């Protein structure tokens, strides 16, 4: 196995980089696996990695209909934070945060996790009550955070308009210093390489066309390229396509897939060091290491699988950013794009057993999936390894939508990224 390091890079440079090994193999699948993961996005690859590395289940395949990390992993705005309101969500996202903090070293792949801090701005008295409530809960849950006043905010983000002359003056903010951003593609690739290294077969360009279910128990999947592949357990981590697979398994999910748009400016010299998010003015922005302002807001209201949304959403988002940062008015927007986010009614994911035995689903991350990637994969792997849900995953059962035990992060998250 080749280890990545600065010295390795130097060594390879002497040889004009002609001898780098593949980051992962391109194997032909076996007939049977202990666990099949459907979906090779960040969460699926993380699941495979932890299954093999932490839980010793190495006879694992990841089946991906396109290319690895090609869905929302490649389309999000890369924000990582764990300052969720409810205990269940905070514990899950904080579990992810702790894994983020050593991830580059664990994977030997620099995912460029950059803890430059996340500000969630408040513009009304109720915003400030909600911020106080959330930050207090965070603190007692072991999640870092504090409440800042406009003067403190101005010190962190000197170029933001923190004056009282705006339509909705900034009254304060929550500040999570450990939050930040990461390089989204690298997360998928790092997990892919790590999983492959531990023996996981990554099967790309292969679509699962059906699930093989006998007497209420799943025994494998059918694929378009390799026919039937057997498995003791199957985990579906397919985000916007979850409904399609659930239908194959004969049940419905409380999910709706919406377009979520994002955009970047042209690269400019560093001017914004942290992530700034505002529910009320409705937009968020950070600056990447390349210099792009990475900007987003909320979902489009209709269901859509088109990886694009409506232009007014972009307009409103840009208005919000110009309102917060009037100096960006002459900076230019380079590119916009859209993802398909599978949203749950309570803005929390589903990590769950299903009506089919040995079939598990991990979906419904909505607009908040990227930041959870290692945590989601880790608890899902634990659940798949043991055949029963991990403690942190239990509250996120799909059956909560029957008994009413929702974990409603809407009020607290708003622009939930």
């Amino acid at each position: 196995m080749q280890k990545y390091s600065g010295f390795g890079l130097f060594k390879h440079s002497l040889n004009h980089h002609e001898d780098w090994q593949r980051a992962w193999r391109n194997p032909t699948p076996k007939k049977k696996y202990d666990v099949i993961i459907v979906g090779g996005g960040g969460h699926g690859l993380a699941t495979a990695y932890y299954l093999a590395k932490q839980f010793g289940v190495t006879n694992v395949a990841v089946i991906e209909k396109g290319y690895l990390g090609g869905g929302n992993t490649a389309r999000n705005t890369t924000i990582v934070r764990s300052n969720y309101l409810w205990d269940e969500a905070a514990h899950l996202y904080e579990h992810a945060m702790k894994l983020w903090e050593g991830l580059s070293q664990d994977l030997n792949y620099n995912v460029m996790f950059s803890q430059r801090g996340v500000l969630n701005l408040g513009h009304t008295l109720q915003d400030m009550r909600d911020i106080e409530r959330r930050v207090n809960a965070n603190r007692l849950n072991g999640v870092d955070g504090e409440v800042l006043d406009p003067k403190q905010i101005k010190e962190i983000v000197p170029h933001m308009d923190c004056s009282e002359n705006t339509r909705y003056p900034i009254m304060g903010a929550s500040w999570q210093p450990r939050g930040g951003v990461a390089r989204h593609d690298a997360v998928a690739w790092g997990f892919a390489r790590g999983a492959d290294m531990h023996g996981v077969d990554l099967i790309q360009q292969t679509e699962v066309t059906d699930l093989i279910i006998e007497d209420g128990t799943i025994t494998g999947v059918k694929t378009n390229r390799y026919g039937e592949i057997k498995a003791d357990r199957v985990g579906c981590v397919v985000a916007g396509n979850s409904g399609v697979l659930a239908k194959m398994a004969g049940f419905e999910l409380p999910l709706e897939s919406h377009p979520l748009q994002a955009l970047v400016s042209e690269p400019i010299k560093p001017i914004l060091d942290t992530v700034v998010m505002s529910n009320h003015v409705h937009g968020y922005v950070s600056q990447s290491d390349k210099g792009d302002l990475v900007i987003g807001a909320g979902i489009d209201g209709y269901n859509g699988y088109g990886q694009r949304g409506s232009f007014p959403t972009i307009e409103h988002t840009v208005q919000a950013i110009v309102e917060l940062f009037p100096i960006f008015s002459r900076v230019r927007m380079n590119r916009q794009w859209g993802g398909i986010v599978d949203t749950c009614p309570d803005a929390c994911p589903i990590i769950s057993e299903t009506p089919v035995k040995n079939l598990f689903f991990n979906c419904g991350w909505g607009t908040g999936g990227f930041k959870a990637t290692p945590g989601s994969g880790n608890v899902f792997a634990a659940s798949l390894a043991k055949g029963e849900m991990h403690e942190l995953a239990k509250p996120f059962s799909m059956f909560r939508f029957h008994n009413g035990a929702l974990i409603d992060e809407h009020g607290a998250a708003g622009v939930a990224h």
Partner: protein
Amino acid sequence: MTQKNRLQSGGRIDRSKPLTFTYNGKQYKGYQGDTLASAMLANGIDVIGRSFKYSRPRGIIAAGAEEPNAIMQLGATEATQVPNVRATQQELFNGLVSGATNGWPSVDTDVMGVLGKVGGNMMPPGFYYKTFMYPQSMWDTYESIIRKAAGLGRSPLENDPDMYDKVNQHCDVLVVGAGPAGLAAALTAARSGARVIIADEQSEFGGSLLSSKETLNGAPASEWVSFVVDELRGYDDVMMLPRSTVNGYHDHNFLTIHERRTDHIADRAPDGQVRQRMHRVRAKWVVLATGAHERPLVFANNDVPGCMVANAVSTYITRYGVVPGNDLVLMTTNDSGYQAALDWHDAGRRVAAVVDTRKNPSGDRVDAARKRGLNLITGSAVIEVQGSKRVSGVSVAPISADGKSVAGSVTKISADTVASSGGWSPVIHLSCHTGSRPVWNEEVVGFLPGPTVQKQLTAGAINGSYSTSKALAEGQQAALDAIAALGMKAAEVVLPQAVEVNEGQPMTLFHIPHLKSTAKAPKQFVDYQNDVTAAGIELACREGYESIEHVKRYTAMGFGTDQGKLGNINGMAVAASALNKTIPETGTTIFRPNYTPVTFGAIAGRDCGELFDPKRYTAMHKWHVENGAKFEDVGQWKRPWYFPKAGESMQDALNRECKATRESVGILDASTLGKIDIQGKDAREFLGRVYTNAWAKLAVGKCRYGLMCGEDGMVFDDGVTSCLGENHFVMTTTSGGAARVYEWLELYHQTEWPEMEVYFNTVTDHWATMTISGPNSRKLLQELTDYDVSKENLGFMDWREMQVAGVPARVFRISFTGELSFEINVQANYGLHVWEKLFEHGAKYNLTPYGTETMHILRAEKGFIIAGQDTDGSVHPYDLGMGWCVSPNKPFSFIGKRGMAREDCVRPNRKQLVGLKTLDPNVVLPEGAQGVLDPNAPIPMPMVGHITSSYWSANLGRSIAMGFVKGGLDKMGEKVFYPLADGRVIEAEICSPIFLDPKGERQNV
């Protein structure tokens, strides 16, 4: 300064209008009609920037939107800075100030360039994924260094002085691009009577015809262009938009056009003008006539200044009268590339060699080159360029027939300019924006627009139809197709005759071989702006990044401000070759908006600053302002928050307002409460279904408080509804929830119970509402009305119509303070009058205005909830201790009833709203504080619920709070601890939330 590369004559510049501009602090001259790029080339400026990663010197390579290198900082003042302006698209104006975006201390002597040379080999694609990991603690340091290198230009640090606006447009046909195809389409559509918009990114219409020596009908092509432009100008229904880029094609034929109205005139827009305008266009049909971009070839050191795209060389000579060098070597895979050498030669400068990768080229332009005696080297390629800040020479060698290897000995030729042409890539960007995938066409050697559901037609080079005659014909046909589809009658248009040029078969070649392997050869650039090389792409493929999306993301190819217009196809070709696949097997290339970057200010338009969101004012707003109110934003409303007097702190003011109200009388502007008029014979039944409590027996003249829940049983709004007549009610809602409640009522009526006869109308803005509250409120009201408002005649929870201060009013005897209280509603335009009358008469009672904060305190003293503050969508009425407001025995299963009976909603130990008294009565719990039972428990500490409302109560002389506690309603008298961020732990006792007058004696007088 001399313009050493400027020709004495020719081009579309106006030599009688010289202009001065500044580049990197030095002054230069150009002419009206120049772009910044053409003027820089005229002045012999070679190095215009440093590359992003390796800091290599870079020069201008193209002449239009595809330019990757000439990315400048513009702006004469701090406030007018614009980062990343493409010099090839910026028209020159007098006084223009520009600078390079990279390079320290300057682009010519750049320190980073040395580092790039030494360290460049350490920086293959994805190098940062492989290093900077150890030790973990160093990452912040590593990153801060990486970050220093980030970005091209810089943001201004002062606010934009310019204005932007938006215009909504509708048309029958939107023609995108005003080259031969676009002009033919627009002319045909316009003459047929269609509403036409034609937009082009350039300063004038004509497209490729502006930079060619072609003739139409035997005359210079520009004459036909003028003829068409003049005719189009004569139609009322034709809008012509030069300097306007159609940058996004959205669903249902909605397109955005970014018009730059003043960027060609001055640093900032002249007074009274908008700098840029966004046209939001709904087009019945769209004709894309967007042309094609020429592809440069990929060869060693192909980024040395002096390396250019062949067509750009022609454009600078023909359109701008600038020959960007002295000795040209042209390398081409096709006939069209020859034009650069012909134009160069005709401009009187030396063509050192024409290197054709084909063994036996033939065609009209090849013949023309031979006729001029140009040095034609066939079956060969420029495999490497010499020079650092300017090309000094090239290495030419024969190549194999498949173009994959060098097949002979190297000849060196000295030259200062290398033009290359690898064929053309149709500009299909807009056709991809709505999800259509482009289709590879072997014959065109490029991607063509794929199938689409949009009402989109294409014409000319976008279809791979590169000859002028074909472009004209396709443009006309597209318009005819649109006209037919619109059911209009087509008018006749006779197209001009173009000269047919015979062309030989082009060679499909993208990447020029070198003597060494790609990895070992000097850098062969694919994406200049992101420093992506052929070796980098091969490395990505070798490492398993096999999908073209992986390749792009791993190398950053196509992620620049040019979005890969020059490089993407070449990069795909290199990847395909490395993977032994065809280009379409490697994947397609997808483009997203914007075609070229768009100013944020233009996207925001007027909708920021003052106009970011409407402000809603009540009828009494003027009075509030005059009386020193501090305001609170509630939804879009500006509500008085409190009314401080001189020298008062906020708490002082609140104490005074609270006491005055309970001791005498206070007044609140309650106009913002949502008000919905409900009529119809089923109105009463409807109320019973949407409220949790009973409405069947509410008599005319009576008011009742109600709770609203969703189908999940969770409270989402509340308010008082009054019975105006047997079939007539007026409902009030929270200020922020009014619109939502109104739509919700309509939803149920229209979709679930359309058989019910009931009508809703919002009357929020029709009424001004003022609440007078306190023991003297009755006396005050009585002074302003002849109606007897005594207890006997106007009881608690009654309402009556009466005259107040001489105007008709509805007076509701309801109370949110627990005091004797009257809510006076008058037509909004009488509001201020009545308000002032109340003060005239109220002075003797010390009538005190109060705002939302005092309202909150007074209601909290009574334990009344505020939906949205004491609820959060996760609590049902029983959680709030408001079971008294639920009537489960109503015949109809009201909204929320089933929801609140679900398993989790009836379990024990749910969070319940209670009152909380701090042990120390002087300590006010912060709202949002989280309660725990054991403050010494380890983190994560189990929490039992949070404080929703908390105040200093001047009337009670102590703090009061409301909050959630798990199982709290059964824990009266028990303790909860609130550990705060500052280290304090505040102890409180659970109590009834009704802190004052539990029997309600004060309001029942």
